[in-house]
């Protein structure tokens, strides 16, 4: 500890670190380790039993696949929304800017019900899809729609300030050097916003993995097809199978942690390349 302190001119290192550890323990570590302790009562064989059950694996596939798809969609369209909000001015821009945050504020169950109604085969939007024999509500596609809705603000809000920070001059410099619009985006703008975009993607992805409220209304919750892992956990809880529920939760947690860690590593690696 002493050698950390020797290099720092900022006061209060011990206090700040102590507080951080305490806070982090109370809020994150203790609840999560409780999860692991509860799971441990199952024993290793019991855990493997739960974790390798066909229904759990299917639900994990659905959860991670739909979350990933939604995060990718959000990364792409969120970037466009952020771009428009930063680069152009138009009447009602402030209003659109405020609307972006709405998915944060809306109770997710409400979002789920609204989306399920809209995208049902006889709903306002669903009927057009139904005409082409595409079912949105009560399928994994519906889950993607709901997850895209709740994840939108993450990408917009992380990319927006970084994009605003890319000086117009840098783009002008590129243009005067003969770069076309595509080259300017590919070689100048994208590398600058890439780390932020990745952060937004990771946040939207993580949020989607844990999402419960909006999904259960639109998913149809058919085992093996459109049943998400959080629902399975709730189902176990309702059957008073607490250890089984925590076992699935632990499994989910480990996968999520590994994914987020690798995204962080990717980000660290990419920002090292563009050391600033």
């Amino acid at each position, binding site marked *: 500890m002493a050698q950390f302190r020797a290099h720092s001119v900022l006061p209060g290192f011990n206090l700040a670190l102590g507080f951080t550890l305490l806070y982090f323990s109370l809020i994150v570590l203790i609840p999560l380790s409780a999860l692991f302790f509860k799971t441990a009562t199952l024993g290793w064989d019991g855990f493997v039993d739960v974790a390798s059950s066909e229904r759990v694996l299917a639900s994990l596939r659905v959860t991670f696949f739909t979350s990933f798809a939604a995060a990718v969609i959000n990364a792409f369209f969120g970037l466009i929304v952020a771009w428009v909000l930063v680069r152009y001015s138009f009447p009602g821009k402030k209003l659109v800017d405020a609307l972006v945050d709405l998915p944060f504020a809306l109770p997710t169950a409400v979002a789920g019900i609204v989306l399920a109604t809209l995208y049902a085969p006889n709903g306002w939007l669903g009927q057009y899809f139904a005409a082409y024999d595409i079912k949105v509500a009560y399928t994994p596609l519906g889950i993607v729609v709901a997850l895209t809705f709740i994840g939108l603000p993450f990408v917009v809000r992380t990319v927006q300030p970084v994009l605003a920070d890319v*000086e117009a*001059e*840098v783009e*002008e*410099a*590129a*243009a*005067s*050097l*003969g*770069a*076309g619009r595509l*080259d300017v985006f590919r*070689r*100048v703008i994208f*590398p*600058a916003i890439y780390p932020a975009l990745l952060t937004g993607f990771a946040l939207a992805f993580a949020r989607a993995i844990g999402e419960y409220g909006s999904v259960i209304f639109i998913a149809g919750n058919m085992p093996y097809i459109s049943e998400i892992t959080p629902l399975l956990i709730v189902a176990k809880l309702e059957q008073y199978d607490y250890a089984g529920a925590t076992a699935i939760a632990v499994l989910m947690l480990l996968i999520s942690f590994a994914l987020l860690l690798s995204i962080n590593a990717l980000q660290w690696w990419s920002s090292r*390349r*563009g*050391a*600033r």
Partner: protein
Amino acid sequence: MSISIENLNKRFGDHVALNDINLEVKSGELLALLGPSGCGKTTLLRIIGGLDVADSGKLLVNGLDIAQRDARERNVGFVFQHYALFRHMTVFENVAFGLRVKPRKERPSDAEIKRRVTHLLQLVQLDWVADRFPSQLSGGQRQRIALARALAVEPKILLLDEPFGALDAKVRKELRRWLRQLHDELHITSVFVTHDQEEALEVADRVVVMNHGKVEQIGSPDEVYATPASPFVYQFIGNVNLFHSRIHSAWTEQHGDAVAYVRPHDIDISHTQQDNEALAGEIKLIRAVGAIVRAEVAVAGSDELVEIELSRERFDAEPMVNGDRVFIRPRQVRVFE
């Protein structure tokens, strides 16, 4: 490449940024656009570079109207005040950028790009930082890299927007001289914007003085300093004392509402009255500043302070101290009504 600008106008809403600009930039010359901030000099530069579009008027390069051409088709090198380097790229990649984005047919090979970039980095005396990132360089180094980047595409015209504005005084002076030398080597038609009169006078072949979106005067540095065309130029370039005809009619040599402009170093100061044009006054402050001696004289009968500069020799020949009663007399007066 000569540039000629005819009847150029540009407005931003109600603000007239450029008002009927006519200007000729000769091939191979280094021209300075000089003026206070907000006078339209940067707007003019950006229009030449294709980063802004004029409302009306012609912009001819070698007799060809390029007003409708996009910035990237103009083959113009642009250097920005705040460098505008690509911060996620190394210095080498920054300079190579213009070559890498060329259409496939015109794009040089990797070996050729390496050769040219290395050559440019040697030209700006920074070949040893090729692998660093812009954030690891000082301001002066960054600006030289920005210049190398602009030169990489072999521009026909080089435009510099307050290139030394963000640098400290010492570096600015060095870079100024260096830019002048570089221009003497390369002879690219160059236009640079500055609000620093000393910079314009020291570096440029010709100076364009602008104010409120209009050209006040075009001439060699010596011309704009010695024979200013308007009161504005007089005041903007160098220090000047103003004498109103109501008070000092002997100096303005005419009646009516006229103002005489006299440079501080064009005033003689003496303890004895030379002739009846001389004004009596009292020295409020006299101080030697390096090679020159500055004095402030309060003219009798008015509360104005007159600034006077005299040489050391002159001062040593007739030493003066605060509170001395003296007579001042102009050697050169310019009267504007």
